[in-house]
């Protein structure tokens, strides 16, 4: 995935963060979201291994051997931050105190199901905190490339891989589009710059409805 695409996705996700939110960002692309948080929005970043108020990575000479994030990378703590043990960390996660979590996905489907942790026989790293985060966070946002490297759809009618959780995804952000999972199904609500309804249609295997604004825009551009 090019850094342009990653930046595009991460910057769009960042717009979902509200002042005062407690936020958990998954490893990889979701971590980049922290770079795009607007200056007037103050959020608290949580790390599963036991902190709230996680700050950016230090430069090499300021690495603290006692201060790592859940990915094992050196980080810092911001003023007002807190450290705690793993049980409290997941009590916070499971207890609905995390306002928004951003995770990658192998597959996501129109029912809000997420598959992100296993490709049986090929990829079995374990579950980590993903199942708790997806079960417990108030909002689950999937941030991922729209298709696999081979160009296959990752947004499906039904996930085929082992699930991380059932029906917990509320938003999907890709380099092409933004989808929302609503009680009446999946909705395409935004196109990313340069993307077309047609391209999204070709690269998405799920059934979805299209927000009225987008239909109007397409009607206009078809004129």
């Amino acid at each position, binding site marked *: 995935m090019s850094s342009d695409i990653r930046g595009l996705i991460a910057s769009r996700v960042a717009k979902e963060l509200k002042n005062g939110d407690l936020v958990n960002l998954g490893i990889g692309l979701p971590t980049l979201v922290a770079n795009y948080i607007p200056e007037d929005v103050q959020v608290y970043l949580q790390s599963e*291994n036991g902190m709230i108020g996680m700050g950016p990575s230090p430069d090499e000479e300021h690495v603290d051997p006692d201060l790592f994030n859940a990915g094992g990378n050196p980080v810092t703590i911001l003023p007002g931050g807190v450290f705690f*043990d793993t049980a409290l960390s997941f009590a916070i996660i499971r207890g609905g105190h995390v306002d928004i979590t951003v995770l990658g996905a192998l597959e996501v489907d129109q029912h809000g199901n997420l598959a992100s942790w296993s490709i049986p026989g090929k990829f079995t790293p374990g579950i980590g905190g993903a199942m708790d985060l997806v079960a417990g966070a108030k909002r689950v946002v999937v941030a991922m490339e729209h298709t696999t490297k081979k160009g296959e759809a990752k947004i499906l009618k039904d996930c085929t891989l082992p699930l991380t959780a059932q029906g917990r995804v509320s938003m999907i952000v890709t380099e092409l589009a933004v989808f929302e999972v609503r009680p009446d199904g999946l909705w395409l609500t935004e196109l990313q710059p340069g993307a077309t309804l047609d391209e999204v249609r070709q690269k998405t295997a799920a059934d979805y409805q299209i927000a009225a604004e987008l239909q109007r825009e397409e009607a206009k551009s078809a004129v």
Partner: protein
Amino acid sequence: MKPIVEAKDIISKIPNGATIMVGGFLNAPETLIDALVQHNVKDLTIISNDTCYENQGIGKLIHNRQVKKVITSHIGTNPETQRLLAAKEIEVEIVPQGTLAERVRAGGSGLGGFLTPTGVGTVVEEGKEVITVNGKRFLLELPLRADIALLQASIADKAGNLFHKKSTKNWNPLMAMAADLVIAEAEEIVEIGEIEPDVVHTPGVFVKYLVQKERSAVL
């Protein structure tokens, strides 16, 4: 006053087949792990957040083929654990991280289990009792205990009270309650009274033995 002992002396009492909780998060109490490798005790069941990295921390025990089974949330950082699993040379029970933490806490707290929404509708549900409370489905997860817990601390006082700096708390306070024999490796061992009663993270009553962390073993 808790005995301050040599790692090799206390580790030599661990029998083959023991179940051991290991505190840490992508790291481990290295002095105690090194003594376990030296002692070459076999057929261990390890309960831990992860299996660290290849041939580091718990990875050393994996590499040295001392581990029969791991109960853990994640093996993604250790390709050797994954290879041994694929070759069926190690048994791996993967547990969601928060569920694992809560199972250890339950084991130390005398609870018979707890109901969690984590894993409902996934493979984690398999073989477990599903209990519906107020219309919402939960998995009944059971407590975990171990014969031995190997912990790490930044500071220990001679009463066994532990202080874990910054992000090093992780599993240590939980596992301290859930094992029959608790051994804590500390970077610094101080006199009783030097850790304020208000800021102890792991009460000393749980800790049986203290070991001075070897300087060379500090990562």
